[in-house]
């Protein structure tokens, strides 16, 4: 029983991180109709940068309790890389989607070598953060406090995002642009600025996700691609363009991976790929999505 | 499925008590009408009356919630575009729908290749297929596009693109052709030219009946044998133009109902 709870909490932790990335993807797709094949690269970027940030913090003698907020801030900062990338992407907005895939694939390649150059080819880990937060008793089992904090942080970010989109003026503008770009422009909205904002926020969600996850797993070159498939699985299961779908999809994928790891580790990624295929056969539109493209 | 031969008594196609509901919204209520050989039928009605839905049901794109659609006596509910083309009914759309990078000749060849079942063998030659090429030229001729055969579709004028769209529907040698606002987006001067070309071409191509959805009542009056008027999803009238235009209530219902809504 405790093992099951362990798996569930582990899966939820992973789901919390995955949700952030998927939310970023959904946001960008919902507003700009772009699929960012380099979304995994931002995730990896956040992870690597997080390691560097924490490493520097330790040298500067920062109290370990601040590591989590530090990771969030590091993620947000490095997410700004999205701005110049969006600038380049602008050239292919009105063109066929194949071009988006090609360009973001080019970025993916460039990121891979950037990681290799800055952080080397071997996976990097960060051991001290978990120790800093210790463990807690939750539902009768011992669980790393860090995991619980991340789940809470992720939910908080989700709430903030939701409130932003629903309640603020900028959020309304974003939604209007998503519905109909040309009409929004006709009403005086600067669509370019909206797109830049949305894309950058989307990237930041990815980088923060990567930064938050790295204490529990390693930052590696494979992360970028593994995540593309994983977040794709989340989007497929949840449905393209739906935030609720991102949440549910993330939970399902996260739990499934946790199960696979505990039962049959070699099947970890395989199980994700298989779920994607299964969902596409059985329910192509996903749980909350409109018809598949 | 072989297209059945057209006889004078069997209607080319007919709808029998067709209703279509989308959730709670009833788009079509109990529509029955038929089209026979050598008829030109116009479907008219204000926006939202259900014209497009009716055409979608009639062309097998949507399944009716109740009722039947029959083509040459055969039930065609929900057959889909490819099967529809095989059965002998083809459709041209309101918004110009072309293959931008293909030439006029190639565009027509696509339809003819489908009709002649040429696409199953990947090693056949397209250029050396005399029958296919001759047919493409014939259809282009009939619609006045002969001189444009080797022009790329995207470089044609708007009117020419419209004609090409219709031509590709013709190229399927249909028994019935459905046109969705064939002259929309075309200047008034050209509208009549296109209609004349259409009617003459249909005769030359052996098309047995034309059904069009049209807003321009002048064209409707001039060219139709029968008018099918829809309002709010119901069949308002099914009569010859003379009778239709003699009745002011009819005209008001179709053209001027906005005030009532």
């Amino acid at each position: 029983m405790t093992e099951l709870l362990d798996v569930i909490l582990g899966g939820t932790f992973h789901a919390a991180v995955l949700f952030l990335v998927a939310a970023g993807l959904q946001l960008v797709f919902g507003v700009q109709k772009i699929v960012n094949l380099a979304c995994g690269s931002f995730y990896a970027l956040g992870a690597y940068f997080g390691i560097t940030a924490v490493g520097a913090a330790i040298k500067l003698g920062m109290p370990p309790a601040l590591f989590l907020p530090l990771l969030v801030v590091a993620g947000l900062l490095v997410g700004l890389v999205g701005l110049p990338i969006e600038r380049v992407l602008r050239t292919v907005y009105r063109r066929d989607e194949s071009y988006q895939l090609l360009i973001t694939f080019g970025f993916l390649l460039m990121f891979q070598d950037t990681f290799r150059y800055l952080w080397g080819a071997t996976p990097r880990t960060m051991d001290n953060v978990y120790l800093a937060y210790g463990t807690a008793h939750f539902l009768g089992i011992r669980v790393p406090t860090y995991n619980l904090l991340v789940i809470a942080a992720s939910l908080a970010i989700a709430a903030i995002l939701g409130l932003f989109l629903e309640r603020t003026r900028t959020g309304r503008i974003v939604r209007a642009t998503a519905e109909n770009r040309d009409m929004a422009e006709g009403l005086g909205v600067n669509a370019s600025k909206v797109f830049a904002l949305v894309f950058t926020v989307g990237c930041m969600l990815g980088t923060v996700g990567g930064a938050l996850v790295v204490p529990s797993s390693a930052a590696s070159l494979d992360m970028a691609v593994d995540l593309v498939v994983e977040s794709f699985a989340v989007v497929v299961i949840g449905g393209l363009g739906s935030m609720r779908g991102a949440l549910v999809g993330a939970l399902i994928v996260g739990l499934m991976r946790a199960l696979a790891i505990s039962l049959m580790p070699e099947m970890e990624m395989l199980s994700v790929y298989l779920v994607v295929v299964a969902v596409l056969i059985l329910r192509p539109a996903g749980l909350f999505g409109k018809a598949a493209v | 499925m072989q297209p059945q031969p057209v006889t004078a008594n069997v209607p080319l196609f007919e709808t029998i008590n067709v209703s279509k509901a989308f959730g709670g919204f009833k788009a079509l209520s109990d529509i029955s009408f038929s089209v026979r050989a050598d008829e030109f039928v116009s479907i008219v009605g204000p926006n939202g009356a259900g014209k497009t839905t009716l055409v979608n049901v009639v062309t097998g794109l949507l399944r009716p919630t109740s009722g039947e659609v029959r083509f040459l006596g055969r039930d065609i509910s929900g057959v889909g575009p490819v099967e529809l083309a095989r059965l002998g009914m083809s459709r041209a759309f309101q918004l110009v729908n072309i293959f931008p990078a293909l030439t006029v000749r190639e565009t027509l060849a696509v339809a003819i290749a489908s009709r002649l079942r040429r696409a199953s063998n990947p090693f056949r030659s397209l250029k050396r297929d005399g029958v296919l090429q001759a047919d493409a030229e014939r259809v282009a001729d009939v619609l006045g596009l002969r001189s444009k055969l080797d022009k790329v579709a995207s470089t044609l004028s708007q009117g020419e693109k419209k004609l090409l769209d219709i031509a590709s529907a013709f190229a399927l040698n249909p028994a019935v052709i459905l046109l969705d606002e064939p002259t929309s987006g075309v200047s008034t001067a050209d509208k009549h030219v296109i209609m004349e070309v259409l009617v003459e071409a249909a005769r030359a191509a052996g098309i047995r009946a034309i059904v069009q959805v049209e807003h321009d009542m002048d064209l409707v009056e001039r060219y139709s044998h029968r008018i099918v008027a829809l309002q709010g999803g119901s069949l308002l009238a099914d009569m010859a133009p003379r009778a239709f235009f003699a009745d002011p209530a009819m005209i008001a219902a179709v053209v001027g109902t906005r005030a009532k809504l």
Partner: protein
Amino acid sequence: MSHSSIEIAPPATLRRTMSLNGIGVLLALIVVMALLPFVASPYVLLLMLPFVGYGIALLGFNLLFGTTGLLSFGHALFLGVGAYTAAVFTSKLSILSFEIILVVSALLSGLIALLIGALCVRYTKIFFGMLTLAFGMLFHSFLYKFYAVTGGDQGMRVLRPLLLGMEWRGGKTAFLTGPFYYYTLVLFAGMGLAMWRITQSPFGLHLRAIRENAGKAAYVGVEIFRMRLSAFVISAIYGGIGGVILAVTTGLADPELAYWTHSGNLVFMAVLGGSGTFAGPAIGALAFVMLQDFVMAITQYWRFVMGGILVLLVVFMPRGLAGTVELLLSRRGREA
């Protein structure tokens, strides 16, 4: 949607000459390669062999991408299938006949494509790209993890096959730059001619119609699913055969052949050469092989350079090398 086809499709004025250009360019290239052994060093010739393998795979890839408009990010899967077939047959089953290996690779690739394609081609664009990416990685995962069967990350050896039943008793380089070189060139020419026929057929026309406007295509009787699936299967067969050639050249079948970057390389080659032309992708393969060789010699961060080049290509030169040349020629033709 209509924008892309205008950008990658050949300009109108050049269409008539295109029918000679396409296969003509490819055959001319092959003739030049046939004459190479008289002037070039074995190093250059060995570099040419992967180009032939990729060239064949790309002929197939471009049927899917350039002609039908489906961008696959998992195409290297079929290269892997071909490579591992060669490995299993030569080192595990001791069947050394190259012809048998080719046929089995083709059949196996086609069969796998039939199964995968039945799911994938129901979707377009993004979903298709990601689905094929997922399947490619699924295969890679399988090759990597099931060590006992596939040799895991060590890969599986590919022994020297018998060409037309004949055994070569000399050295490896002599084999690869001699009889194998010419055999593969003949294969390349043959498969090129077959692909030319395919693209010039009503079948090919239907594929292009699907690329241009799938909705309208259905209305003029094009069986979209069946056509796309056929294109997928044919492209897979070409991929499998390309993979066999690659594997025999290196003597090894390894899981990285199916990794996503390898699929990405194929896409890169097609775009570099010009996916709107017949011979473009093959030219792209040649350019890529030489470019990669050159860049790798200068820096270990060749992925960064190649990625940057891809981005620049898409932004500034989406027609690729061959496509841009064609465009320039047509402009000159119009002015003349």
